[in-house]
Every structure is written in C-alpha cells, then in structure tokens.
C-alpha cells in the first residue's frame, strides 16, 4: 500500500502521529456489504471481502476541522447495472482477475484509510475506463454524480501514448459524496483532469485520487473547490518513470462556514521527473482552508525537479488559513523548492483602482480574480465546454 508519509530513514524512525480520534456514527454492516458485493465477479468479490475485513477494524475519524460528528452515511441500495455503449468503459463490479490485480496494486492510504476503503467497497457506481495505446480522445470523458450515486469508484488506464481528458463534476445538488479515482498513465500517455467540487448544500465531500505515471507520462490536474460543502481532497501522483511530469493546480474559495482540507502529494521515484503543485485560494466569512502540498523526492530520483507554491488571500478577519508545505528529500542531485504566502489584498493596488473611479467592492473583485486568472485561462483552453461553468461558480462565490 502506498502510504502518505514514510517515517523511516536508514536506522532511524520518526514517531508516527496518533490516529485521529474515533467517531462513533452508524456504520455499514454485513447486510450492506452483501448488497454491495452482489453481482460481483469472483475476483472482485474476493477483493471486496478482503477490504471489508480491514474496513471493519477501523473507525471513522472525528476530524475536528471538518466537523464530521453527526455525519450520516448514504444508504446502500442495490447497484443498478451499467448500460454503457462506450467501448472503453466497463463496469468495475464485473472486472476480471487481471484488472482486479491492477486495482490492488494501486492501493493507497488516501485521506484516511477508513474513508478510502468505504469507497472501494460501498461504491454505488464504478467503472474501469481503458484507453487503447496511441488513441487520443478529443472530447472529455465525464464523471457525474446523480441523486442515487453518492459513492464513486473508478479506475482509468491510459495505454501507451494515448491521451485523455476527464471532467469530474459534483454538480450543485446533494450534501454528501465520496469518490476514489485511480489513474494508471502508461509510457508517453497524457491525462488532463478537471475536478469541480461545487455542491451548494452544507455537507461533506471526500476525494481520494491516485495517479501512477510511467516514463514520459504527463498529468495535469485542475481542482476547483467552491460551494458550501466542506471538502477533503487527497491527490497523490507517483512519478515512477523517468521524465514523468505531474502538475497539480488547485483553485479554491471558502465562504460561510465551509472548511476545505486539501492535500497534494507528488512522489518522485524516477530520474529527471518533474513535479509541480501550485495553489491559489480566497477565504471569506468564516471560511477555513488547510492546504498541504508535499514534494517527496526519493533516493535515486537524480535530476528531479519539484516545486510547490501556494497563495491564500484572506478577505475576512474571521477566516483562517493553514498552510503546510512539505519538502522531503532523499536525493542530493535535485532541485526542490517551495514557497507559500498568506496575506490580504494589497492596499496600494486597491487604492489605485479606486482612484480610477471603481468602488471598493469592484476593485476587490478585480484583484481577487487576478489571482485566479492564469489558471482559469488554462482551463478555458483545455476544457472550453466547462470554462463557463467554472467562471460562473467563482462569480457566484465571490460577491463582496
């Protein structure tokens, strides 16, 4: 299993942080498990039983910042059979043993092991998407949540030199969702991913994404966190092949009582691999963000480049921003850096715009948009059909 942090170097060990306090809520039972594993292929059934025995040993974390106390899990109902005409998509529940082996290989700790396992077992919808080698799909593949499917579990395999765009959209409705997504990006393949978390009800969203990149593979992830749901998102890119490149570019707005707990990890295991994390966010009202960006370069990843950058703008005196940029380096022939800033709107910029006749709010809004604009332009270009939705969400959230 790919752990989020490792605590050993040579003969020395670091103390592992204690597990979060346990939360007592009504959990799924054997009956729910039976419903979930119904119609599973033998290989998938074995996988799920395995995971379920681990699941039962763990409790949900209370996760004080996210205030999970009182959280209600969605009910488990029989899975609808997937009728999909897409030749590249198959149902996860009926996967054969080779596919399940891959699913097992892409095992990770995620946000929290309990929550990850929950997605692996109790998913209401799950697909395996395999793109053949050298195939380039122009239209993005869309993953959407509907009223009945609140837990998604997907595995994407991009064949050699293929390219794919994926859009995962929470939609605006609903107050709870969980998704596990695993991506195997083979040699020379390229993935561009847009994740939109924009539910407007108060509630909880959880994301566990793992990306494994082979030689010369490329990954770009744009994650937009807005709306009123408290979201915990976890993204881990494993650069296993030389010259693999991963770039994670989140944007976020937290307002009202929203809490965003975001974790982005790029782990370098290959020579000349390139990892970038670049986040920008705005906090209003009682909004709260936790931004953890980790560049983790393992011994042997010679010539690796890792950079991390985050900027948070505080627009309310009761907002709170936590930033934890980590740089973990076990190889000396590298170039690794991070930078983080937390601050408010630059008074001089504000003064300039107001001196030109704009109101304070108009000026603020221009400055704040400026922080997001470079990333938004990239989204316009890569995902032209979604750029309007993304911009609308920001318009809605950033009224002063």
């Amino acid at each position: 299993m790919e752990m989020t942090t490792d605590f050993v170097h040579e003969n020395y060990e670091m103390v592992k942080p204690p597990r979060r306090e346990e939360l007592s809520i009504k959990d799924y039972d054997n009956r729910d498990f039976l419903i979930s594993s119904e119609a599973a292929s033998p290989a998938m059934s074995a996988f799920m039983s395995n995971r379920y025995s681990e699941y039962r040993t763990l409790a949900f974390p209370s996760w004080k910042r996210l205030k999970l106390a009182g959280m209600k899990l969605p009910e488990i109902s029989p899975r609808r059979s997937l009728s999909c005409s897409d030749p590249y998509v198959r149902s996860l529940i009926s996967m054969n043993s080779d596919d399940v082996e891959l699913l097992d290989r892409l095992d990770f700790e995620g946000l929290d092991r309990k929550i990850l396992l929950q997605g692996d077992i109790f998913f209401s919808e799950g697909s395996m998407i395999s793109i053949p080698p050298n195939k380039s799909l122009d239209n993005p593949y869309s993953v959407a949540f509907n009223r009945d499917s609140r837990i998604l579990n997907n595995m994407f395999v991009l064949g050699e030199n293929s390219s794919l765009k994926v859009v995962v959209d929470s939609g605006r409705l609903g107050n709870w969702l969980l998704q596990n997504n695993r991506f195997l990006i083979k040699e020379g393949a390229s993935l561009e991913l847009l994740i939109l978390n924009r539910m407007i009800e108060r509630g909880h969203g959880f994301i566990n994404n793992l990306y494994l990149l082979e030689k010369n593979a490329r990954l770009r992830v744009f994650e937009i966190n807005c709306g009123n749901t408290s979201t915990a998102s976890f993204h881990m890119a494993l650069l296993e092949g030389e010259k693999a490149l991963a770039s994670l570019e989140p944007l976020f707005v937290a307002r009202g009582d929203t809490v965003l707990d975001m974790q982005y990890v790029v782990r370098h295991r290959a020579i000349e691999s390139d990892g970038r994390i670049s986040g920008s966010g705005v906090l209003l009202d009682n909004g709260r963000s936790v931004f953890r960006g980790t560049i983790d370069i393992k011994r042997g990843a010679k010539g690796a480049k890792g950079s991390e950058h985050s900027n948070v703008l505080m627009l309310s005196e009761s907002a709170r921003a936590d930033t934890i940029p980590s740089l973990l380096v076990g190889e000396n022939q590298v170039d690794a850096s991070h930078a983080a800033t937390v601050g408010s709107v630059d008074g001089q910029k504000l003064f300039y715009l107001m001196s030109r006749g704009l109101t304070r709010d108009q000026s603020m809004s221009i400055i704040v948009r400026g922080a997001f604009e470079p990333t938004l332009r990239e989204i316009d270009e890569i995902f032209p059909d979604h750029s309007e939705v993304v911009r609308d969400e920001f318009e809605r959230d950033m009224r002063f």
Partner: protein
Amino acid sequence: MREEVFLDSSKFDFLSDTKYSFMSERGFGESQIIEMSKRKSEPEWMLQKRFESFKAFNLSNKPGFGVSTESLDLSRIISYLDPDSERQRSWDDVPQEIRETFDRLGIPEAERESLAGVGAQFDSEIVYQNIRKELEELGIVFLDMETAVKKYPELVKRFFMKAVPPTDHRFAALHGAVWSGGSFVYVPKGVKVPLPLQAYFRMNVESSGQFEHTLIIADEGSDLQFIEGCSAPRFNDLNLHVGMVEIFVLKDAKVRYSTIQNWSKNTYNLNTKRAVVEEGGTIEWISGSLGSMKTMLYPTSVLRGRRARAELLGITYAGPGQHMDTGSKVLHLAPDTSSLVDVRSISAGGGWAFYRGLLDISPRAMNSRSSVQCTALMIDNESRADTVPIIQVMNDAAEVGHEARIGRLGEDEIFYLMSRGLSEAEAKTMIVRGFMEPVSRLLPVEYAVELNRLIDMEMESSIG
C-alpha cells in the same frame, strides 16, 4: 587551509577523572527527587514544584511526533551527579581535573577575552560562576539556579516554569522534577550588558542525564547577550540532555541567546527553549545544533506584546548516525508583531535533518509580519533533508511568506575551487562554511571560529 580542515576531535572527546560526592540511583522516582532536593538544601516550595512536575510526568504520554525514543531507557539514566566541588568564583580554586576539562575546551580563555561572566556546569552542578565586578555593581545578577532559588525566591517563584509549564510536554515535566544546575540572569531596567554572559555545560559520566535550567529575565529597556555551549565525551551507553531555557523579555528589552550544541553522538538531546516577549521587546535566537545522536529542539518565541519581535537564525548539522529534528515556533499574539526565521541544515553521511516549524498568527495579531526561510544542503544521496513548516493565519491583516529550497553542493563551485588548487574535500568544506556564514557572523569571533572548526571536523569525517 589544511591545518584547519584536519582537526583533532579529542578536543571534545576526552574523559576526565573526576570524583563525585554523590550519584543518584538510576531511574526517576520520588526517592531520587527527595534526595536531590535535600542535598541541595532546597526550600520546601521548590520540592513541591518538583513533585507537581513529577505528577505531570507520570500522567504524560510520549510526544506524537519527532524522533523515536524507543532506545531511551529512562530507568538506566542517572539523574543527579554532584562533582566533589564547591561553587568557585576563582578559576584557580576549581578542582584540577574539572579545570583541565574546561581548559581544554577553551572556556577560561574565552572568559578573559570576550565575556562578562561565565558559569560552568560539570554534570549536574555548577562548579564555577563568575561575573565581572563592574557588572555586578550595575545590579546584574548572574548566579547558578540553586543559589537563585535561595537568594531571590520571589523572582524565581514568579518566573520559574511559567513560560513552559510542566504540563507542556513529557520532557518538560521530567525536567521540572529533576532539574539541576543552570544559570539565573536578571538584568535591571535600562541596563545594557556590554559583553556576553556565558554558560558551559559538560556531561562526563556514562548514562547520565543533564537537566539544567536557565532562567533569564531582562527587565524593561535592558539589553543582554547570552551564550551557551555544551559538550560531552562519547560513551557506549546513552546520555540524556533535557535542559530548559526560559527567557522573559520585558517591555522594550532585547535578548540575544546563542547556542553551540556539540553533545557527543550518543546523546538524546530533548531540549525546550522558550521566550516570552512583551511590548516592543526583541528576542534573537542564534542556534547551532551539531552534536547529539537525536535532537528535538524548537526554540519558541511567544510575542505577547504589541510590536514584539523575534528573530531566529539556526544551523543544524546531521552527520552519520544523526537524526536532528529541529525547528522553530513563533506565536504572534499581539498586533504589529514581527518575526524572521532563517534556518539552514546540512546533511551528510546518511544523516537526517528534519525541519519542523510552526508559525501562528492569532486573530488579535493584526498587521503582523513574518518571513520564514529554510535552506538545506545535501552533501550526498545517503542523507535526507526534510522541511515541514506549519503556517496558521487567523486574521486578514497579516503578511506571511515562506520559502524553502533543498539542493546539493554546486558542481561548478567545486570545480572552480579545485581549479584554484584546493582538494575536493577542501572545496566542499569551504562552500559549506559559506553556507553557514550568516549564522557564524553573529557569534563573537571566538565562537564563530569554534563553529567553523566543528563543522570542518564533521565534514572531514563524512566526506573525507
């Protein structure tokens, strides 16, 4: 050049043949505490404080982060050792073996040349304490802690373990129960101490623990520089150092606290240092952590008054077999406070340098500014360098910046120096010295030379 690179490590790694009038039983318990307190003829209130701390220790858990302390068996540690010596004010009166130890470390020489006063601690007790007469006349108090407890009970009661309460963490509690030795400094209002004061700590017995307590009170408008040095010879069994430094910087006062830590490579160094800074005050930490097997040290600045200011310049060296978990904490609790953290680490020969930082800007700390910079140099790819700063901002009128960079010795630089006739090792050593220059620059010249020598010695053994 070469003479400076190849130094004799016996400068620190020697054992002196000292007699002890008392050695406590191994381990920690009430009987050891009572015995120790009795031998020090402490007032009852201090014994009670020790018990309170011991109670907190028994209720405490191991820290949930940092170096693993699995191999540290507290039941083997000798908590209290009393060298057979009265406290002396004249160097010539210090027992010969102890005097030789400090002579070899260069302490009396330093005192003559650049210090206003020296305290020298040998195992658990201060053996020598001296302050220049003219400074004493200004009302500056520089005493060993035991004497201060008796002579200035009100001041000690008011400040002792108030910056770091025993309930703060497990090792603070242990310290509170068995503390021994250390310095007490009081600088009266408006007095500027012209030369630094110094304390030197030396552990000389296998599996002993040193628990010195340093308490510094800089009254309003005063100015003080304090230097601390530590060393121990290498033993087969573990040694433990659980010291504590509490500094109270009152209104508009300024304190610079410099440390060169060079414990032997079998020492657990679990040290707590904290300064509470009032309005307009400044604390400056200059910290060189070179020795020990495992270190956990995070000098903390609590900026409690408006316009209070903290600066920390630190250098950590993690050589073969060393796990150094060092860092800094700055808590901004008042408006217009500012802090500047510049930490550097060098890891070589398989060492592990881990920077752990906390920067906290509270809701009240409007218009506060902070900048944190971490730089790590990795000499080879057996070693590891990590930085994990935590930044918490709770208001919208603060400016916080953080930057970190980890890299190797530049090949071009090494090539250039070698083309000028230096060997590869000399070239590397020279680059490393340049990397630490901002820290050594702030030390008195004798200490800067010492720091450079130590680094040269370490570099010599790990890059050959």
